């Protein structure tokens, strides 16, 4: 390991890691990139298209080249920027996107054939023969494309969500951000300071400039210490604010334990939703490079990155320590790298400066008015060609820093589609100050890039932000710091014949931009999409502005006329695991449990997901092998004796008030306001467009007090709609609504012995048919004083009741009913038997009420009252709805051994099976133990006039076709005598 002097690493804490299986050592405070450089490793990855050898290009999250795969079984993580990985003991990284070894990548052949792979080439070929695209060309392309690989195993880590509501969110902990946080923190404001790095200080950690006579990094440490002491300030390192959303909401991801060798049970990352009254964007700037021929070799990096590696990590990027380093620049900042290196005794070849009048700032050679026109060294830089005054010369060079000026990190400020503005002096895009409500931009992100400017601007932004929210802050003492002029002169790329890379990862060269221009792909979005410029994992952070400049040169327009690209979230890539917030697997949605769940579980019930509810599907007995045995037994028990089923999931809405009757008349298509206390009525609701919406019952418990039931699926929606009608349409009706679905446990007690069973638990209540006939309801007590509601309604067609008790007594009531009904053969039944019973009775449910049907189709056209208005009444009378001749009918197979399959389409016998002859479809089907054959319900054209006709149930999807006989949908007791008995 070779280090130069200084740095912010802890040389006493050695960390072991491997790269491509080879062991190395680094220090605490290293990134993977700095540790690899310290070990002389230059070649780290391969580019996307040409598989060119690549090394470290930057020292931050803008890295286009040094992408690695972190290994670890299911924790394998592809495409991870070595420049952002905090080194830990035991880290294992591998290079990616090559076939064979990293140094002998077979796909590097692509580079030899690169002339064939020019921008957009794939749109022009691979078209013949047609079938070859999916079979040959595309699979080959797909295998070669992509970068790293997933393990294909479920992500084993946990993730969390968090919410913060600070007065001020400061994004970026460099000079401007620290000063802003300090100013606001001292003023007592609630401050969150987030920075993607694991240390606060930003560029100060990478520079050797002084602040108030301290080294910049030491000043940052002092400020950090003070901020840590303030209870109103929350410092969040390793936290990337990735997106700016509406009304001051920012998305951020904190990498909680990615840097810990053994994180134990800790969450891996946390997704923060930060709702800030005001925000300061102090995200600094990213350096750009200057394309020249073969400028992509390992060992060529951004000049500012080279300075960061020297100052913060005490490394230089040559393969061999002592090889001379050169700098290529169009501004003074490149010289500052030379100064920093010289100060640490690094051998320098000099600074190649495109400016004719450039002068050295220290003791090194400057080539003024010079450019670099080529480089050599396939797997690591060996030499560069310097052109000056018409002459060119190859010189040996171990590493090259390139300084093309700095682009403010305007990304977040553009997330609301605000466009940055071109600053012709600074030769860069700066953010529009009003780009985003509540956002103040400070420091280098605002184009205020010198240390002194950044400090002052951070303090200013904090004062301005606080005053907008009525907080005052004392003006901070702004410490003395350096003014670093840049003296930049426009120089965007070195002209030449060879390939000069603009976008490294996606292999977009100046030539590709020229070809896009030649082919009229000139608008910036066409340029991007035709060449893939800026579409790699770095989103063109080091490429886009340079590419615009090249295009501007070709079109003769200015850069701002040529355009800007739109920045979209996220700022840097964010793991899908954390964006999912940890609610995966069985926790994807809440489990709603019915009141009798515990009892059902104790009985070994099989459960089924019904929306968010878990409902008992059937209750298998020990001797039952097939589910049908259980379901048939349960259904028969209801027909022959008595069954009990938890129907709590059906929606219940309490409607109270003097105008409740009038209100219900307007909600239901049928007349509902006339239902008398103690009575229940079936009701149909329409949508305002006239289609059938929901059905259920409405029970009048007392004058002005009703209980409306809805289907399980629509419980929330019907309530919402009723509130809409109450609040928005008819606010003058004196009526109040409350959803009581979860407040009452409701059990269906159905079967010829249901009266007998219930009479054993009611307290002094006359259950006789005369006293409590079909469609009655009453409040009463059961089991010795438990308040309850009893409804005599039937879904199965049998004598039946539904009994409701406060939800917490539901389980006990179920136990009691089963206990006291043993001699009656009481049988719990689940949703499957419930379905069988209702199909046998011809009751519509979700499959029939699917939102596409009308009252006519359901055979309920007469329920839509003409005597009153109601939601949907007017629209239900339109031609298309009235004219719909499909009707809900029943079906039995002509051959009783055949099944009826829901989803089959109905075709008149003898007609071709095609859409033109489609006569309807089977909505629901089951085996009816009562009839001893399969049965079904379905909609059929003129179905009500086709009883006894045989039709074809076509199921070409599964290659089956069955003859069915059309019958009444009421397979059981069509006269309805049983339920009135």
């Amino acid at each position, binding site marked *: 390991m070779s280090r130069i002097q200084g740095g912010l690493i802890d040389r006493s804490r050695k960390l072991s890691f491997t790269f491509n299986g080879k062991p190395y050592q680094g220090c605490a405070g290293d990134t993977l990139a700095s540790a690899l450089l310290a070990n002389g490793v230059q070649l780290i990855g391969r580019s996307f298209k040409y598989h060119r050898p690549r090394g470290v290009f930057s020292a931050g999250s803008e890295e286009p080249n040094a992408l690695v795969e972190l290994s670890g079984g299911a924790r394998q993580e592809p495409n991870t920027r070595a420049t952002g990985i905090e080194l830990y003991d035991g880290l294992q990284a591998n290079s990616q996107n090559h076939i064979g070894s990293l140094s002998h990548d077979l796909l590097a052949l692509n580079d030899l054939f690169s002339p064939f792979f020019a921008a957009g080439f794939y749109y022009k070929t691979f078209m013949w023969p047609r079938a070859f695209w999916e079979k040959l060309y595309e699979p080959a392309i797909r295998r070669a494309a992509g970068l790293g690989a997933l393990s294909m195993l479920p992500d084993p880590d946990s993730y969390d969500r968090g919410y913060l509501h600070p007065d001020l969110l400061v994004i970026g902990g460099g000079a401007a951000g620290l000063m802003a946080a300090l100013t606001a923190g001292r003023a007592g404001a609630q401050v969150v300071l987030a920075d993607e790095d694991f240390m606060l200080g930003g560029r100060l950690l990478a520079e050797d400039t002084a602040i108030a006579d301290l080294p910049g990094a030491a000043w940052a440490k002092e400020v950090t210490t003070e901020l840590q002491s303030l209870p109103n300030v929350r410092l969040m390192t390793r936290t990337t604010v990735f997106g700016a959303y509406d009304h001051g909401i920012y998305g951020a991801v904190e990498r909680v334990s990615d840097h810990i060798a053994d994180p134990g049970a800790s969450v891996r990352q946390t997704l923060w939703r930060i709702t800030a009254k005001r925000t300061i964007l102090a995200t600094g700037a990213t350096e750009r490079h200057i394309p020249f021929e073969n400028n992509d070799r390992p060992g060529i990096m951004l000049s500012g990155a080279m300075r960061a590696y020297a100052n913060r990590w005490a490394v230089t990027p040559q393969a061999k320590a002592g090889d001379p380093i050169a700098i290529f620049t169009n501004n003074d900042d490149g010289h500052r790298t030379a100064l920093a290196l010289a100060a640490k005794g690094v051998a320098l070849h000099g600074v190649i400066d495109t400016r004719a009048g450039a002068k050295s700032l220290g003791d090194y050679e400057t080539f003024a008015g010079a450019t670099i026109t080529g480089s050599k060294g396939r797997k690591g830089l060996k030499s560069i060609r310097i052109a000056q005054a018409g002459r060119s010369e190859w010189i040996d060079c171990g590493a090259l820093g390139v300084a093309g000026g700095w682009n403010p990190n305007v990304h977040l400020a553009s997330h609301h589609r605000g466009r940055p503005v071109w600053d012709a002096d600074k030769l860069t895009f700066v953010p529009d100050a009003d780009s985003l409500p509540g956002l103040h931009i400070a420091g280098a992100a605002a184009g205020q890039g010198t240390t002194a400017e950044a400090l002052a601007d951070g303090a200013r932004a904090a004062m301005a932000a606080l005053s907008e929210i009525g907080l005052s802050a004392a003006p901070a003492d702004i410490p003395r710091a350096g003014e670093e002029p840049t003296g930049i002169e426009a120089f965007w790329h070195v002209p030449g014949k060879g390939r000069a890379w603009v976008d490294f990862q996606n292999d977009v060269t100046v030539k590709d931009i020229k070809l896009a221009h030649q082919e009229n792909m000139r608008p910036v979005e066409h340029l991007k999409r035709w060449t893939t410029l800026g579409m790699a994992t770095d989103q063109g952070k080091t490429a886009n502005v340079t590419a615009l400049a090249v295009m501007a040169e070709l079109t003769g327009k200015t850069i701002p006329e040529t355009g800007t690209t739109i920045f979209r979230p996220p700022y840097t890539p964010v793991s899908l*695991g954390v964006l999912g917030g940890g609610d995966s697997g069985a926790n994807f949605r809440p489990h709603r449990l019915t009141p009798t769940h515990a009892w059902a579980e104790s009985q070994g019930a099989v459960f089924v997901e019904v929306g968010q509810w878990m409902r008992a599907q059937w209750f298998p007995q020990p001797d039952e092998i097939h589910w049908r045995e259980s379901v048939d037994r349960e259904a028969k028990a209801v027909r022959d004796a008595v069954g009990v089923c938890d129907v709590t999931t059906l929606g219940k809405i309490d409607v109270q008030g003097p105008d409740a009757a009038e209100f219900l008349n307007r909600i239901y298509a049928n007349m509902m306001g006339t239902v008398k206390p103690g009575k229940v009525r079936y009701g149909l609701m329409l949508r305002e467009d006239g289609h059938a919406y929901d059905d259920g019952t409405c029970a009048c418990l007392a004058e002005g007090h009703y209980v409306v039931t809805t289907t399980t699926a629509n419980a929330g929606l019907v309530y919402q709609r009723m509130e809409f009608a109450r609040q928005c349409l008819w606010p003058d009706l004196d009526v109040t609504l409350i959803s009581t679905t979860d407040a009452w446990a409701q059990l269906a007690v159905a079967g010829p012995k249901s009266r007998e069973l219930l009479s054993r638990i009611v307290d002094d209540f006359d259950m006789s048919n005369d006293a409590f006939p079909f469609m009655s309801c009453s409040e009463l007590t059961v089991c010795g004083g438990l308040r309850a509601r009893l409804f005599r309604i039937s879904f199965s067609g049998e004598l039946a009741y539904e009994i409701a008790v406060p939800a917490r007594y539901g389980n006990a009531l179920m136990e009691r009913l089963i206990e006291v009904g043993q001699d009656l053969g009481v049988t719990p039944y689940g949703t499957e038997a419930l379905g069988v019973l209702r199909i046998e009775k011809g009751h519509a449910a979700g499959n029939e009420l699917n939102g596409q049907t009308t009252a006519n189709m359901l055979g309920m056209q007469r329920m839509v009252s003409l005597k009153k208005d109601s939601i949907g009444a007017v629209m239900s009378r339109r031609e298309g709805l009235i004219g719909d001749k499909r009707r809900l009918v029943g079906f039995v197979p002509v051959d009783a051994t055949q099944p009826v399959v829901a989803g089959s389409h109905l075709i008149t016998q003898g007609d071709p099976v095609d859409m033109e002859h489609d006569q309807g479809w089977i909505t629901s089907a089951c085996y009816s133990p009562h009839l001893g054959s399969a049965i079904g319900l379905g909609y059929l054209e003129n179905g009500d006039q086709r009883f006894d006709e045989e039709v074809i149930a076509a199921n070409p999807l599964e290659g089956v076709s069955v003859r069915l006989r059309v019958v009444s949908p009421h397979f059981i007791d069509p006269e309805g005598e049983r339920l009135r008995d």
Partner: protein
Amino acid sequence: MGFSGFRVIKEALTGHKGWGTLWRNPEPQAEYDIVIVGGGGHGLATAYYLASVYKQSRIAVLEKGWLGSGNIGRNTTIIRSNYLLPGNQPFYEFSMKLWENQEQDLNFNSMVSQRSILNLFHSDGQRDAYRRRGNAMHLSGADGQLLSQDDLRQMVPFLNFDNARFPIKGALMQKRAGTARHDGVAWGYARGADQRGVDLIQNCEVTGFRIENGTIRGVETSRGYIGAKKVGVAVAGSSSRVMAMAGMRLPIESHVLQAFVSEGLKPTIPGVITFGAGHFYVSQSDKGGLVFGGDIDGYNSYAQRGNLPVVEDVIEGGMALMPMIGRARLLRSWGGIMDMSMDGSPIIDKTHIDGLYFNGGWCYGGFKATPASGYAFAHLLATDTPHNTATAFRFDRFSRGHVIDEKGVGAQPNLH
């Protein structure tokens, strides 16, 4: 000169000097027979089929921004013909057949890739609904298969079969479905139209219609007045704004739909997969990114950007469905403006103004419709009669009660 592998090789060997422009940058003429407003996928396809199939001439496409900057520039690239209702299914199947010949027809590789779609189901009710839909597909001549959970375990073993809140019970598969390279589709149609003499005019915003006595005369634009015998509007996302200039209110709301792409990955997902217990659909691009999306944000918007709750909701669905994507990273998200119609289905129809035609209301399914939409709109513009696969896409279906409501949620656009 045409595109071919031989040509690519020849140009590569001669420094790519021979490639001409993909299309011209013509100045607008004073008048055209047919002006198409909107240079997105549907507008460009319309122009192409008008010129190639219906042999019309003097055609211009007016585009406010750059060609292909409509929703064809920002979608999840899925093509399929797996609809339920008779008003839709034959149209989308016609579109699928056009996709299948698109590259050869256009001489442009739009990377139509028939890698299949799986619509997963998680309950018996969903299975029945998919069976009904799959049979409707067969009835209109499309392909479809019903797969069991065992089939899926073989085919896509990385799905969450064993620890799911809503277990995967099976899927409706359409093998001929897949994806296409969205920008390539726009460019292919643009180049094909340009080669047939259509003027593609970029940076030309329509600012008004000139209508005299109920008949269209032309359009006012940011580049001056342009006369037209017929004007076809295909500006999904901006339909209400543009048609308001002709005094029309539409059965459409504009909503934002976010879409997402991950960093590039080696082959991970074979075709298109849709989750049936949450709204999540995903495919993998040839470049390697997982391309996915979910629900619209749910409120009216022209902002082309969405908010965090839907981002979380979509990715939560993704993680629930395939927890192996947890280590992949979201690279980019974006928002497009959808014409959400009142029944979830599109409109291709004449208007009450003679010579003014409308194509819109594609909700978030417009990409797959691009070829058939262009074809049917061209048919309508050229013949004044609806194409036989698009007869149901009329304005008056709403008032008459013939909505094409695949989801059955009624006139609430954010539920479609």
